[in-house]
């Protein structure tokens, strides 16, 4: 470990948190091996590593979720034992978990203050509860009703609720495990304002993310892990991104530009005409050609996910037609869509993507099980195993075997499993909603390559992403949505500013209706 630098802001030398030589093993998996980490007060310390490197595990140990097998934890230089989340909270350690841990049947405000409800005369004071939650939302510039049930929120909004909840603890140490994975630029900017404010107040922040640009923007130091081991700690400002990446993956990645062929003359594979659904989708029409990747951009809540789900038949639509390869198709459920050759990767892998209790192999095969069925309905597990192994290699899914239960994988690796499921299904038309959510740089590049290859084979692909660079890098064309409407379509080489202009182009009538409702 390099010598600990003095905190630039305070000049204080005792670290707020020290984790030394932490070991942790799960059945069949060595998650951490002599892992180290150090956090100063008033510092944003990025924790980096590939999917499955052990970042979440290390932070779960710090926040009392897991117990460590070996190693020391020091707080303000004093050795401590952290045995429960409650104890971590009492020590001033707060965490935003990577896998959202919300109570779906409760409201946003009830979630935020769970365990610390304001009371009057011994009874719950819902008024105060909602006011307090509203105050936090206001401080985050977040427009959200405290009384909305989190189950009805999109994953991005749920993420914002988690952030609000973590802020409400006023912790000295705040761990953020991929807080921006589901967020859009605007919300990320908002989050960074908050982080800077906390930093100024002397809070130590652990920041985990796979978005490399954020690391430069927000962090002071970067610690890199690989395979559960400590690789090194470097100052963020004067370390090139390439160096950090090579520390993460153990080699240098070449960032090849993707060649984007012209598809303007190819036949239209999917056409959506005048799609409507309540207030979320208003008269959306779009089309994708064979061999084309259409990026779908927009701010949080623009309705992109809603459009995708409506096309896929996951939600009923009020009106609108769907045409595949020039033929109108009736889609009223996902099975119709899949039969018509459409696949949809959900943005919410935990609830809509992964059968968490099944193993990796069966999750990958879930949408294509018929392929492995022999006479008498008997499954050919050998063939399934071979296919699963292929994807495990191709997407470098970190798992002890293809028989590991999906829920035991790290977040990014779970995402890869869901992607593999749709790659295996081999649909003519693929709708990928936030496909690289939580995926590390190396694997991201691999997925971009795969998507490109699929397009070259003549597949039509729609990519919904909150990361503009991703949209710009992948898309032949970019459609932009705002408040349920399609506000414009741009060519692949469009600038970020053009996209943002369309993404915020809200017709006054729309705004009125929205606020009235």
């Amino acid at each position, binding site marked *: 470990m390099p010598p600990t630098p003095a905190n630039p802001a305070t000049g204080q030398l005792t670290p707020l948190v020290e984790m030394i030589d932490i070991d942790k093993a799960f059945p069949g998996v060595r998650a951490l091996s002599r892992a180290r980490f150090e956090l100063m007060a008033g510092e944003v310390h990025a924790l980096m590593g590939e999917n499955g490197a052990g970042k979440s595990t290390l932070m779960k140990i710090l926040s009392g*979720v897991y117990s460590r097998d070996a190693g020391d934890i020091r707080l303000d230089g004093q050795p401590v034992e952290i045995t429960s989340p409650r104890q971590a909270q009492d020590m001033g350690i707060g965490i935003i978990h990577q896998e959202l*841990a919300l*109570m779906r049947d409760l409201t946003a405000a*009830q979630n935020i203050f769970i*365990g610390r409800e304001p009371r009057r005369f011994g009874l*719950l004071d819902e008024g105060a509860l909602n006011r307090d939650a509203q105050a936090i939302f206001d401080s985050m510039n977040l427009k959200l009703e405290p009384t909305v049930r989190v189950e009805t929120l999109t994953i991005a909004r749920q993420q914002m609720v988690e952030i609000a*909840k973590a802020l409400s603890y006023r912790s000295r140490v705040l761990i953020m495990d991929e807080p921006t994975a589901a967020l859009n630029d605007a919300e990320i900017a908002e989050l960074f304002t908050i982080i800077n404010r906390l930093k100024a107040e002397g809070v130590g922040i652990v920041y985990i993310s796979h978005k490399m640009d954020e690391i430069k923007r927000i962090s002071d130091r970067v610690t890199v892990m690989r395979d559960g081991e400590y690789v090194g700690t470097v100052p963020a400002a004067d370390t090139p991104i390439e160096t950090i990446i090579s520390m993460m993956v153990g080699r240098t990645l070449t960032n090849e530009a993707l060649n984007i062929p012209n598809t303007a003359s190819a036949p239209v594979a999917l056409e959506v005409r005048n799609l409507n659904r309540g207030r979320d989708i208003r008269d959306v029409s779009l089309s994708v050609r064979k061999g084309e990747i259409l990026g779908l951009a927009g701010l949080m809540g623009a309705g992109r996910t809603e459009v995708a789900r409506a096309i896929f038949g996951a939600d009923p639509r009020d009106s609108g037609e769907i045409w595949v390869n020039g033929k109108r198709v009736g889609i009223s459920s996902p099975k119709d869509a899949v039969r018509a050759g459409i696949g949809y990767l959900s943005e919410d892998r935990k609830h809509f993507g992964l059968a968490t209790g099944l193993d990796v192999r069966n999750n990958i095969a879930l949408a294509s099980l018929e392929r492995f069925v022999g006479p008498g309905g008997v499954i050919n597990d050998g063939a399934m195993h071979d296919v699963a192994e292929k994807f495990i290699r191709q997407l470098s899914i970190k798992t002890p075997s293809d028989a590991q239960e999906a829920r035991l994988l790290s977040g990014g690796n779970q995402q890869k499993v869901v992607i593999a499921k749709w790659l295996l299904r081999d649909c003519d038309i693929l709708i990928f909603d936030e496909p690289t959510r939580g995926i590390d740089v190396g694997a991201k590049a691999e997925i971009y390559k795969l998507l490109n290859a699929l397009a070259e084979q003549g597949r039509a692909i729609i990519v919904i992403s909150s990361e503009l660079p991703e949209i710009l890098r992948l898309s032949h064309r970019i459609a932009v949505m705002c408040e349920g409407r399609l506000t414009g379509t741009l060519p692949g080489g469009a600038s970020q500013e053009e996209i943002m202009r369309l993404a915020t182009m809200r017709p006054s009538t729309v705004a009125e209706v929205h606020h009235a409702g």
Partner: protein
Amino acid sequence: MTDTTAPATKSGVRISGAFHRLLAFSGLIALIVVFSIASPNFMQTQNVLAILQATSVNGVLAIAATLVIITGGIDLSVGTLMTFCAVITGVVLTYLGLPLPLGIVASILAGTACGLVSGTIIAKLKVPPFIATLGMMLILKGLSLVISGTKPIYFNDTPGFNQIALGSWVGTIFPAVPLPNGVLILFVVALLAAFVLGKTQLGRYTFALGSNEEAVRLSGVNIDRWKIAVYATAGGICGVAGLLIASRLNSAQPALGQGYELDAIAAVVIGGTSLSGGRGTVIGTLIGALIISVLANGLRILSVPQEWQTVVTGLIIILAVYADILRRRTL
């Protein structure tokens, strides 16, 4: 379990949902209308009181089950716990000859204590609620027989004991409404339970546990303690049911109670509470319990042969719940 309840019905007491709640009565109202037309005897005061009286014990048990089911658990022991509490009351009042208030306290304490034990086995030993309460059901069933010597214990020496369920405090004030105390007690228990669920920390954690237990734990809440508290509260409510049934029969019948858990859970589920936890209402449970007893009473009043009563009950339970699902979907 598959959750088929729509977002609209949910936690606690809330005024905004009042209209919605009213609609939920529709299945019940349809039954009442049909039976009223079919038989002139159905809507007579005496019969209405008989229906309410028949609802009281199952209603109270169902409220206990509601609390537990909202946490995502299940309580199979409600029926035999009720009996056990009745037997304890019998021991206190008849065998020991202690005064009535002590008998009442004993019943509720015994219920709470047994709930505490179930809750502890579930929370601390991590035994699934189904097994823990199945075990409790059998243990209590046996103990009731042991303690009572397999004989009913009569309350003949405690005059006024049968007034707990059969008297009518309301009737003494408003002679026109001779509401039996048993029914009054059911309503009071329902109000209290709705209040606890909607307004107290215990209620909040009840919903939270059923919604995502792990998330509650990660939020630093002592989930064991609250879970135990829920089972203990449910146990106490079963103690009330024990008093009701003992008072109604003027005796503690030690062999009764098994099988009652199914009716209680059925009332809860008919009332729209999901067995997967996280959502549920006391008023829904009351409606569910009423549907069950209106159905039983109505079919009897119409002199439907007993084997057909069973068939029709099964059909109507499915239809009532389906109607409720349709209503929510179109809302």
